[in-house]
């Protein structure tokens, strides 16, 4: 394709209209920034308003009674694309779970935040609603080791989840009613 070069008038060839136009535009922007406001968001002081459903860092949550919800099923560990999650199950003679009627809870639960890609697969796959992508997007640490969050830290950051579904209370009631199998009394 051939693009015809526009023929400039003598006034245009003096560059003066272009200069004046440039001055007008730059002055407009300069004055606007000086007297009103720059478009810059000054980050650490000002933060984004995060939309609902924002996918930040994954943290573990507790139920309203303060029990660990995770049952150490390791589904999130298997689904995690960058292999950021590492779960150590309690083993046959490990610590009993916080929660009545739950079979087990993880001995250790680590998420390497340097590997995590915030995809949300762990939240999606979790049968217990124990892991949620929270609103933290700015994770900092001085060493790589510091960026591997352990169970304690994840639980603390995750806080309590108030969901409408209380699966284990229901199960506990059912088990008690049926006396189907020995139930640990909470």
């Amino acid at each position, binding site marked *: 394709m051939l693009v015809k070069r526009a023929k400039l008038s003598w006034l245009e060839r003096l560059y003066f209209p272009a200069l004046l136009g440039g001055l007008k535009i730059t002055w407009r922007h300069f004055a606007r920034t000086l007297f009103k406001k720059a478009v810059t968001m*000054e980050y650490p002081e000002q933060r984004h308003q995060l939309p609902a459903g924002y996918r930040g860092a994954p943290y573990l949550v507790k139920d309203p009674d303060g029990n660990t919800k995770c049952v150490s099923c390791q589904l999130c560990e298997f689904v995690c694309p960058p292999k950021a999650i590492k779960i150590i199950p309690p083993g046959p003679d490990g610590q009993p779970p916080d929660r009545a009627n739950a079979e087990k809870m993880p001995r250790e639960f680590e998420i390497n935040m340097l590997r995590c890609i915030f995809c949300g697969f762990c939240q999606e796959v979790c049968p217990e609603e124990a892991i949620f992508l929270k609103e933290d997007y700015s994770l900092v640490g001085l060493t790589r080791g510091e960026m591997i969050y352990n169970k304690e830290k994840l639980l603390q950051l995750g806080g309590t989840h108030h969901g409408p579904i209380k699966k284990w209370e229901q199960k506990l009631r059912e088990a008690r009613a049926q006396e189907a199998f020995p139930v640990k009394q909470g």
Partner: protein
Amino acid sequence: MDWDFIIISSVKIVCAVVALLTMVAYSVLVERKVSAFIQDRVGPNRTAPPLVAAIPVIGPFLVRLGIFQPLADGLKFILKEDFTPSHVRKIYFWLAPAVAMVPAFLTIAVIPFGSTLGKQNMVIADLNVGILYSFGIVSLAVYGIVLAGWASNSKYPFYGGIRSSAQMISYEIAMGMSVVPVFMMVGHLNLSEVIQAQADGGWFVWRSPMTFLSFVIFLIAAFAETNRLPFDMPECETELVGGYHTEYSSMKFALFFLGEYAAMIAVSSLMVVLFFGGWTLPFFGLNQPAESLGMGLLHIAIFLGKMLFFMVVFIWVRWMIPRFRYDQLMDMGWKRFVPLALANIVLTAVWMWWMA
């Protein structure tokens, strides 16, 4: 040659160089702030030395203004690794930054930056061939850039050096010829005499159409001489990576940087002296040499104020106009400004002959 002269001259030189270096550092800050504002940003506003920033109200304001940024910049340049690539021509590679910076500093020697302070004339060297000296020195600046481009021994710096030699030599001609009408009217090459002539008969920008044309040509040539943006062929980032200073790092790069801004200051001062009456103002009797100390300081302030105005013009234009193409640049230099400046000289001569 007596001791008084040597001591007073040394003091003047030290003061002028310190002032020049400070202005260079802060013109970089102004450049960054102005560019930020034109682009709707805020610019540097974080550098805060611990004690100063703790002063209530003033401290945070200065920090927001970025007043301490040049200190941080300077520290960064000093602490960076001074890297010399293995493929360069070492001696010239090390020599080039110095050669690029020194001429800009030497130019201020002949610039009268004030009237008198006490009994001293506020000019380091009141040469009778002032303007010839400054043009001679300014034309040395090209050697630093050419040397840097050649000594780097790699293609983009080389292109930068070649371009700058062509550009600066071309525009020096237009620049030199553009000021001839001014000196024809003054009848003297001494810059102090030029200021005196303007104090008596009005600034040269307004005095006649010929000198106004001189000013326009000088201004445009000054942009080309200092490698500033509409004509920054030697270092245009989009084509030549960084141009002649691609291979430089740390303090050696900083010297080129200082040189560029010092050259801008030198050319701004020349412009103020030649066309805008130097340290004079045409009212309140400010166009007579100062009798008191306060008046002397006021004259220096007036000079600095005018010079800073031109620095802002230099900086503003950089963010206003896109870069010219290389052939357009040469075309403008040789086919427009050189003939125009020549015609201007002839016209002035005819006009002066007519008036006489």
